[in-house]
């Protein structure tokens, strides 16, 4: 797992992907932070965090699209799948490498919070930490979804677009839930990413939502492992 993690991490920085991702992420976070916190002189970061949801929907599939699609196209997956490592290690190595880039992006909030502390002197930590946890879980869920769709195709663009569409669907699912009634509606509404995430930005740390996002991460990584397994048999 370590070997794959290190390789993927290095690959992000030998190609422009990591730099572009980080630059865009920093730029937009900075913009939201300036407009919402500095301009209005508030320590309430919920607007800043809420805005990031949409950005991550677009940016994270760009980070994950390469992970398996490119291996398949370049036939390098043959090297991974014939090496004495199990599929779970392969998937986790890639997942953690991608999550690391995401975390490096998230680190921009540290200087933001420091600026707030310096300017305001006193901030309430609970909502900020809640927001951080929420954003982290959301991002990693998006990553696991992206990796799964990357394992379905050998075309990176297709992988990115499908991941993006699925994430949008999960974002909008609350709206679709209104079209149905009864159990279906309840199930669909409870799958809504946005309503779960928005709880965090409001400073509510709900165990339900935490378990929900961790389950999403687990399920999609598991599906990726199964997908790789299945491909051997087809």
């Amino acid at each position, binding site marked *: 797992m370590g*070997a794959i993690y290190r390789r993927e991490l290095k690959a992000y920085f030998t190609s422009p992907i990591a730099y572009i991702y980080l630059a865009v992420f920093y730029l937009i976070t900075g913009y939201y932070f300036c407009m919402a916190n500095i301009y209005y002189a508030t320590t309430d970061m919920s607007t800043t965090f809420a805005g990031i949801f949409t950005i991550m929907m677009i940016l994270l599939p760009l980070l994950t699209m390469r992970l398996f699609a490119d291996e398949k196209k*370049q036939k390098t997956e*043959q*090297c991974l799948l014939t*090496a*004495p490592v*199990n599929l779970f290690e392969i998937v986790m190595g890639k997942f953690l490498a991608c999550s690391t880039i995401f975390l490096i992006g998230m680190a921009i909030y540290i200087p933001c919070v420091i600026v707030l502390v310096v300017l305001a002197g006193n901030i309430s930590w609970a909502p900020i930490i809640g927001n951080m946890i929420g954003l982290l879980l959301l991002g990693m869920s998006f990553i696991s979804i992206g990796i799964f769709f990357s394992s379905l195709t050998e075309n990176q663009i297709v992988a990115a677009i499908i991941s993006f569409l699925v994430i949008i669907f999960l974002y909008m699912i609350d709206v679709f839930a209104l079209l149905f009634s009864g159990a279906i509606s309840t199930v669909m509404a409870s799958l809504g990413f946005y309503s779960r995430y928005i709880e965090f930005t409001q400073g509510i740390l709900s165990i339900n939502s935490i378990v929900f996002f961790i389950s999403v991460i687990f399920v999609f990584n598991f599906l990726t492992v199964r997908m790789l397994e299945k491909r*051997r048999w087809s």
Partner: protein
Amino acid sequence: MIEVKNLTKQYGQKKAVDNISFTVNDGEILGFLGPNGAGKSTTMNILTGYISATDGQCLINGIDILDDPTTAKKEIGYLPEQPPLYLDMTVKEYLSFIYSLKKCKLPKEAHLEEVCKLVKITEVYNRVIKHLSKGYKQRVGVAQALIGNPKILILDEPTVGLDPKQILDIRNLIKRLGKKHTVILSSHILSEIQATCDRIVIINNGVIVADDTTENLTHNLDGNLSFTARIDGPRDEVLKTVSTINGVDSVKADDEKEPGVYEYEIKVKESADIRRELFKRIASRSWYLLNLKSNELTLEDIFLKITMGMDVTIKSKKNKVSAANSAELHESVDKAVAAASVLGAAVQADEQKGGEE
């Protein structure tokens, strides 16, 4: 040791590999020969655990590749048809990655250096793989398979895309490796397999059509041969004279190659050796034998024979021999005879198979 038992791989309706069984003993170099699409790569992919068989079993040193893939894969070094190279890495980074991927326990620096020296890639060690030539990429692929000193090496067409010098290098390397490792080597080039392998398995349409040692295949001599001779002498008389030689099946004149010099295609019966008699007759008539070329069977000929049961057209190969140089002549004809024998054995196997059915 590799044991393959009743292996079948089905893609939809098509059977890529159909119930094949063979064993490779320790320290043996096995040549896997077949035309493109015969099922060579599929078999190798199953052996290495990259894909799964529809039916049958693969034992690597007694371990089933499906039951305990991690342990079985540790024993194997695999070079797929297209070397699995990460183009954005340097050779050093890539081999280090493979080293940790295979959880190799050997001293790292020394081991990587040894492998690089073996496949002669030391001079490109710090270069990015993307910028390497095809030959170097192929060799990095071989290096990758050698990392961790696996007992078994599976090489899928290792010399594809290399220049003649590199082909020779790789062949010698494989021969050397064969002393310490068990090697399976696939190719669609007959001479390549003959040059390196102890044993040959010929596969066609997913079915094994021949499985024997190179020597045994050579001894089972059968099949017709032909020679191309360039003779300086009157055309009609040469035709008449040559056709009376004992063992000549037919002779026909080709184009006029030089003024008054024609090329004759001489077909012989049952691999009769007519070379000495031919030389004597021509000399006795004071004509000149300018060139004598024995025509080897190509793999295509063999497959035509196997698959269609038809008489093969003997194609000429670049195997020109000066008539005066009898040592060379012997060697060249021996080669032709060896090639013909492979054909014979293959046909026998085919007939046997037909009988069984």
